[in-house]
């Protein structure tokens, strides 16, 4: 793919602490290494304390704004079912969604002040997204022996959606640059997990 033609708008979303920012950084690093212009905007701050978080990534020269408008995302990488539903209005018609099946229960639901049924969220995504990849986060964690690689597992699934605009080698290089060496093999496995 000619780098000058590449224009991708990607959203990563989840709950504070799930590793969305590192995943966003890996995509950005991979893009930068290929001289693809990249801009991001993300939630940093108070909302990180267990709140809903998102990153908007714009790859390519076609746009100026770091934030995208509704219906502009080529790809949504959802770390959490409910958060993915929350961001769905940003998806382009025909865009791809990669979502982790594992919910993060909010404290408000635990103390009985609100209800949250993650299965409903997955059903909603199935009904409304044609290009949907559901990542079984529990199985991935069991296979890989770590729940902390969820972000890289999701990136791998995103690669295979074809909407990331990058290939596996690009991301592997980015992981090598950004992640401590002792976790390299584990992350490479995580990246390949959905293959």
């Amino acid at each position, binding site marked *: 793919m000619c780098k000058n033609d590449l224009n991708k708008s990607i959203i990563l979303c989840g709950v504070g602490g799930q590793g969305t920012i590192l995943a966003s950084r890996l995509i950005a690093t991979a893009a930068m290494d290929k001289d693809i212009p990249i801009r991001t905007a993300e939630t940093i*701050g108070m909302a990180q304390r267990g709140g809903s978080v998102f990153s908007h990534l714009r790859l390519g020269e076609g746009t100026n704004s770091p934030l995208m408008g509704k219906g502009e995302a080529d790809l949504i990488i959802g770390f959490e079912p409910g958060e993915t539903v929350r961001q769905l209005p940003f998806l382009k018609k025909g865009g791809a969604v990669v979502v982790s099946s594992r919910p993060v*229960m909010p404290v408000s639901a635990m103390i009985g002040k609100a209800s949250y049924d993650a299965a409903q969220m997955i059903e909603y995504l199935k009904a409304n997204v044609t290009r949907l990849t559901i990542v079984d986060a529990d199985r991935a964690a069991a296979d890989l022996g770590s729940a902390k690689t969820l972000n890289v597992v999701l990136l791998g699934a995103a690669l295979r959606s074809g909407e990331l605009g990058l290939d596996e080698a690009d991301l592997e290089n980015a992981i090598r640059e950004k992640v401590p060496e002792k976790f390299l093999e584990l992350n490479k496995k995580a990246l390949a997990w959905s293959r």
Partner: protein
Amino acid sequence: MHKEFLMGNEAIALGALAAGVNLVAGYPGTPSTEVLETIAKRNPGNVYVEWSINEKAGMEVAAGAAYTGARALVTMKQVGLNVASDPLMSLEYIGVKGGMVVLVADDPGPISSQTEQDTRTFGMFSKVPVFDPASVAEAYEMIQEAFEFSSKYKTPVFFRATTRVDHGYEAVEVKDPEEYYVNSYEGFVKDPSRWVIFPRLSVKNHALIEKRNAELKDVFSSYPRNQIVAEPGTAAKPEGAQAQRACRIGIATQGVNFMYTLDSLRGRNVRVLRVATPFPFPEKLALEFMEGLDEVLCIEELDPVIERALTYVCGKYGLSVKIRGKLTGDIPLSGENSMEIVDKAITAFTGEQGERPEQMPDALPQPPALPVRPPVLCAGCPHRASFYAVKCAMKGLKTIYCGDIGCYTLGNAAPLDMCDTCLCMGAGIGIAQGVMHMEPDTKCFAFVGDSTFFASGITGTVNAFYNQADMTLVVLDNSTTAMTGHQPHPGTGRTVMGQAVEKVSIERVLRAIGLTVVETVDPLDHKLSVETVKRVAAEPGVKAIIFRSPCIAVTKPKGRSGVDAAKCIACGKCIRELGCPAIILDSDGKKAKIDTSLCTGCTLCEQICPVKAISGGAKNDTAAGTDPGKGGCHV
């Protein structure tokens, strides 16, 4: 030169270093914090950097440096500018010898602030020129220009960015340290007629400032970042009624809204004015922009600064251009703008639909109820234990819990519900006194964090002691400035430059003020904490409890708690009373279970479990050594 993928605040910091900044001071506050942290991290070795105890102190330190001919940067968030406004208002009358940039991060939304105040308006009020960057890459260049400008005109200047620039990321071409400008300075030269502010000097300098700012309108009119783009009719010859209208309308915008505007136009050919220096306003450029226009839509966030300036220009020069924006209801008066808001406003204004992507939302059915996720105190946060101890100790009594600014504001959430008021840094201590003087039968508590105590809690405490208040001051000492990402403060015994220094003792400060009841307790010892609160709160006058336990982000857990399902009676007390994110319901939906990936082993739940079904935790009892910027998240 080399390329780096930088956060806006990192780009601003590297730009300041490239401009030869000699001294940087500031107080943490979202979204400004990373500027000073990056300076400290990337310091070539010759820059003095400090986390000041508050913004006023930082402003004064920076001013002193600039009096010597040095280049100084002071960083803060918008509400921090309120604290620093006293020195700044006067400093503008005195001016500087070197260069001085006042970096203020504004927060439309607000995403993590108390107000939606606009530093551009503060620029007008204080007469200090304002630079307003639109992107990360531009911010890197613009801060260097701001320093040039400040040095040339001997005035402090504002560099105000908003969250989307401060916290956006972009690949930026930056200078190598060898390419940095070196600012050598003469030193302070005594001259009372210049440095000592007296009314006679003020009136003289006031006139000079007004004269200079009038000149700056022209200077800024030719500053290339103030620009007119997308001349109508240049891309395609307009045809039809709508196209004719396109020739007679324009959009004036600023900051990241300029980017939203460019992306929203999508084929709609409208003349655009981008204002990079909202004060002093580039009048000549604005006149050129409005030439031949009937209407202008101002797209901006926070105050209608450009809108008012253009309305003024029209009045001044007798132009019949209709200026629209926030004041005419075309742009929301509050909140952050989005692509949708900007696109909608442009569509309404131009009467023309842009080439928008085919949207999902029209086709999307109503989703199921989405989870509500207000920010919560972390699992194992010692603040939870402190609040819970006070709550238990004061059960059944008439109380008010005055909160303050920091992570502990989150004590307001259910189930703790321990923050009745929150206003601004340090205010809880004063508010508790006011309530107490009016309601002597209320047990008045003020909760303040350790960093906030040093920033602005001491004066309030002196006031309480002197004016015979009856209240309990609760200092939540987690040995860091947690909310903004773990900056050091006077109580931590280290500086941002890495020096180990003598700690300022909160106990000794309180005793020096005159308090005789000052008790320090580990909040993770629940029983002792409750007893301490009961005993201390019963004393007359001003008394203090210091809850000391390190933030979980600066310590390593020693153990994790676990629930013995055979013992758990599913009473739900741990979940219902503590609201700890690590305590979840087991798959049976009744018994408690610990999410070990979140649990820090603080043992609070173990201590309150009526059947001792939870065990395995091991609380930390010492504050671990911490590195600035390491661990935890930035807030």
